[in-house]
């Protein structure tokens, strides 16, 4: 059993106090909740600055830049190459610093260059990859041979009609049919360039039924997710009470 020190107990109690401050919002908005909320916003921002500095800024920019300036003092290598390396290391930092021009209305347009750089890179990277993973691969996986589905369903039905034990393959085959047809009908529902009438209307209707089943499943899982978060906090509070008991040997 881990020994709890008095210092640990104070920290744990402060965490429990803040937990209750947040829970107090369930009764109504109050100064304790507001205090905890604003404290967290400030602490979180300070935490972000520290983590960004230690994990990212130093080893990706400051250290390479420092090394490239130091290299100027070494006799090996051409000066042009060394200046090129310095510029290569300096440029992203300058682009980043340009972002701060947003705080001044007269020069805020300069930050567009940095945003343009980031946006261009992200969009260029996303274009082929999202098409590949979200469209091509998904459409390919949907290319299920209907003949294979019907033959499996038919074989199982034959067993059923002969009072045999179903291997449930009929329902698996039917499920594959749901995927094949359901995905297309779901897409038909979201296609607003054609009126949802006739064949299109029928497909859209099946689509919305399939979507409702999917959203229902999501809702069911969402409930589990939220309850799990509450259980996490209760686990902490139980641990806190145990720690008090351990410390005072209750």
């Amino acid at each position: 059993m881990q020994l709890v020190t008095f210092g640990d107990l104070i920290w744990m109690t402060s965490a429990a106090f803040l937990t209750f401050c947040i829970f107090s919002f369930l009764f109504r908005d109050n100064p304790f909740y507001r205090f905890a909320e604003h404290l967290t916003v400030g602490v979180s921002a300070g935490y972000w600055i520290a983590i960004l500095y230690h994990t990212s800024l130093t080893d990706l920019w400051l250290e390479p830049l420092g090394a490239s300036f130091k290299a100027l003092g070494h006799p090996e290598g051409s000066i042009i190459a060394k200046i090129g390396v310095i510029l290569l290391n300096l440029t992203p930092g300058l682009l980043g610093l340009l972002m701060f021009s947003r705080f001044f209305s007269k020069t805020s347009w300069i930050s567009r260059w940095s945003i343009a750089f980031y946006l261009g890179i992200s969009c260029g990277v996303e274009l082929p990859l999202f098409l590949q993973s979200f469209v091509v691969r998904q459409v390919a996986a949907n290319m299920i041979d209907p003949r294979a589905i019907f033959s499996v369903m038919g074989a199982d039905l034959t067993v059923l009609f002969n009072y045999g034990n179903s291997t449930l393959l009929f329902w698996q085959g039917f499920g594959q049919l749901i995927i094949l047809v359901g995905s297309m009908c779901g897409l038909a529902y979201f296609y607003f360039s054609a009126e949802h009438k006739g064949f299109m209307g029928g497909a859209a209707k099946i689509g919305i039924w399939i979507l409702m089943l999917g959203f229902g499943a999501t809702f069911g899982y969402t409930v589990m997710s939220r309850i799990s978060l509450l259980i996490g906090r209760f686990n902490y509070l139980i641990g806190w009470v145990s720690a008090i008991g351990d410390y005072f040997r209750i």
Partner: protein
Amino acid sequence: MTQAFWHKIMDIDRRWIYLVIGIVTFVPMLRYIGMPVQITSEVKSVYDRIESLQPGTIVMVPMEFDPATAAELQPMSRAILRHCFSRNLKVLSTAFMIDGVVLIENDLKVIAAEYGKVYGKDYVYLGYKPYMEVVLLNMGENFRKPFPKDYYGNKLDDLPMMKGVNNYSNLACIVNVNGTSGADFWINYANGRYGAPLALGVTAVMATDYYAFLQSKQIFGLIGGLKGAAEYEKLIGRNKDIANRSMDAVSVAHVFIILFIIIGNIAFFATGREKRI
């Protein structure tokens, strides 16, 4: 029961509902009953894949969760790490969610110590870099580009485990524990562009979204929420760990939520559908 009664039910102060749900969630946590947890095939796939790996193989277990999603994902990540370390697999980890960097580092250290694992030889923690979609792409070329050093400031080439390990092609698989939409980037970039075998451990909210990728074999396994964590704990023989112990409370709370839905709907119809929210 009269209409007046159902009107009263419809108008009940929501704080009473909060109190009920708080009590029904808390009480089962005081005594562990141990309701049986069924294993699903999507969780077993992840377990089987790790089980099949030879000792010394490198597995990447990137973790993207923060205190908000830790209740669901921490039990899952701990179970996966325990499984990897018990099989003497080497673990490479990152944390792309800034609020979880310290949390994940602590977990990795504590669980590695349980199995006597040595940093740099048995596991490496690369730490955090912002804009994970860009970092994922860069890691596909060479880990050293976005991570010249690890979280502790060691050069990657100085770490015995990282010798000859350049990118995803040197990994057996990736088991990403993710509480953000960043899971999409792992599918698109790590698996889509570089073909890395990928499994996901996600919050329950997100889990249903990834069945399509399971069916298309873009991911080889899926662990969803606290239930998924409980299944994994059961598979590795740790039935009394936190996810399993929490399933009793999850079960009771679910039953009450369903009762709320049913009672709410009965009240809605019994009041002649007059009350519309």
